[in-house]
């Protein structure tokens, strides 16, 4: 599957395309298949996202999991600062990245 990601223009936060909006949580991402160029163009033009792009991912029981470790670090946050990740209460969250 392919999912779309980018950064929020104002805050720089990592965001994921939900099909109608952008979410901070990769679990909300939807498969866009191969027809994503129009979405990227439209969303960037509307300044709802900065430098969006498509990445490969696989669907798991917990939702989409980016194929590359770099995107998984983007999705979670820095593995060396669990308190700054999106799952600060889960000390094992970093294992999802690796």
């Amino acid at each position, binding site marked *: 599957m392919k999912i779309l990601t980018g*950064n929020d*223009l*104002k*805050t*720089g*936060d*990592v965001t994921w395309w939900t099909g109608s909006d952008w979410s901070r949580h990769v679990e909300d991402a939807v498969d866009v298949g191969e027809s994503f160029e129009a979405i990227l163009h439209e969303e*960037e033009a509307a*300044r709802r996202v*900065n*430098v969006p792009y498509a990445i490969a991912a696989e669907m798991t029981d917990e939702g989409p999991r980016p*194929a*590359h*470790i*770099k995107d998984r*670090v*983007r999705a979670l*946050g*820095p*593995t*060396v*600062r669990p308190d*700054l990740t999106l799952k600060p209460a889960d000390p094992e969250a970093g294992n999802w990245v*690796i």
Partner: protein
Amino acid sequence: MYQYDKYDQKMVDTRVAEFRDQVERRLAGELTEDQFKPLRLMNGLYLQLHAYMLRVAIPYGTLSGKQMRMLGHIARKYDRDYGHFTTRQNIQYNWIKLEDAPDILADLASVEMHAIQTSGNCIRNISSDQYAGAAADEISDPRPWAEILRQWSSFHPEFSYLPRKFKIAVIASDEDRAAMRLHDIGIQLIHKDGELGAKFFVGGGMGRTPMIGPEIRDFVPADELISYAEACLRVYNRYGRRDNKYKARIKILVHELGKEEYTRQVEEEFAHMKTLGLNPPVEELARISEYFADPAFEPDASDDLDLSDPDFKLWVDQNTVEHKQAGYAIAVISLKPQGGIPGDASSAQIDLMADLAEQYSFDELRVTHSQNIVLPHVKKSDLYALWQKLDEAGLAPANLDLITDSIACPGLDYCSLANARSIPLAQKISERFADLGRQRELGELKLKISGCINACGHHHAGHIGILGVDRKGTENYQLLLGGSAAEDTSLAKITGPGFSEDGVIDAIETVTDLYLKERQEDERFIDTYRRVGMAAFKEAIYG
């Protein structure tokens, strides 16, 4: 310390206003990201893995207490309560909002700081010896020259679009504490026949093609130093490659032309430059130098120290350095606590270091390229009180230059260029070698970790270096041995096939065990490696 004159302040304030307008236009949709990106980068604002990242210039690593406190304020108000001191003597904030960036730059400008030229193909922040003005072994203070170079290179119209980024270091002692020969230009101040001048080394660097800068001039008179630097840059700007960013650094030009031909062209340009009268007027040199006059040292300060507290004694032994003034010491604050993140400091720690600088070090701090903080002028009789306050704040690891005093780039935890994480490796090594007695038994051991080939973690220059790579989507770590960023500059060599995270830590333990077995007398790790050679270490690691 240097203080801005009205021109410096006006330039910085004007840039803040200009960037505020650019940000507003970006947020209003009047600028696309393609249009805005070069503008934000000129102001040190990157877009990294998780957010915008702001890199703030700390000129030659020198800060006042007020400036340091402002860095803490920015961490607290605009970021997530911490900052990361870098291997370029700067500080980076990892969680900046675009809409806050102009206010941050305005706050920086209020204490004579900025983020200009911390990105882009221009002359970056000048680096220098973190012990400048305090070291017992320097022949002159390099800071006035670093400041003159800063002024010359700031907004230099001819050098704003070089083929690639450009880094200059200035030192003034035979001991190199600034990795001088691994810079695009390395300048070593020397005396020759009683006259102050400089040796020039050009074409050093790390990155994907590491090179040690060759000496191209054994003496440039001090008053011609800027002209000579300008000649070096002019030849590079004219002939450096712009068709391939991986071959665009000056080291490639010097290598491809050959040192002799590059030098010939520089000398030709230099002869021309001397006819233009571009050297700073003598009065300006004198004016700048006055800012770096010695503080009011107490002439009768005592060298006596009560070392009856064993923990304090360990810290004094390891983390203080001889000062040029009797009764004083240079104190190094290690930002490498056990299991910690190299170079990170919380806003509270930053504030405390600012307070301690004001109280104990004539209001001065330095950032080192090893990601530590220096209080350059501490009266020995104040060391115990200083150490107690540092210890309470977790800022007194007694590990300067030991294996746990590692350099690590932000790596894949923060950096969009990285292929592998660096920080977890530094943390695990710090845990594995936590026993201070064991660290001291190993002695001086420079461990440097980069998460990609761009080498921000200086892995080529580590006695032990680690390079993180991406092997089919998995983090893998290459081990290197034999590098040095000091006056015995050398480039580390890869031992062989890479390792997993745990595997490379085991391999490090293997090589340190071999070192202890093979060590003769007071050899450091690097000395034993050079004497014994790579083969023995490879045999120990791979069998």
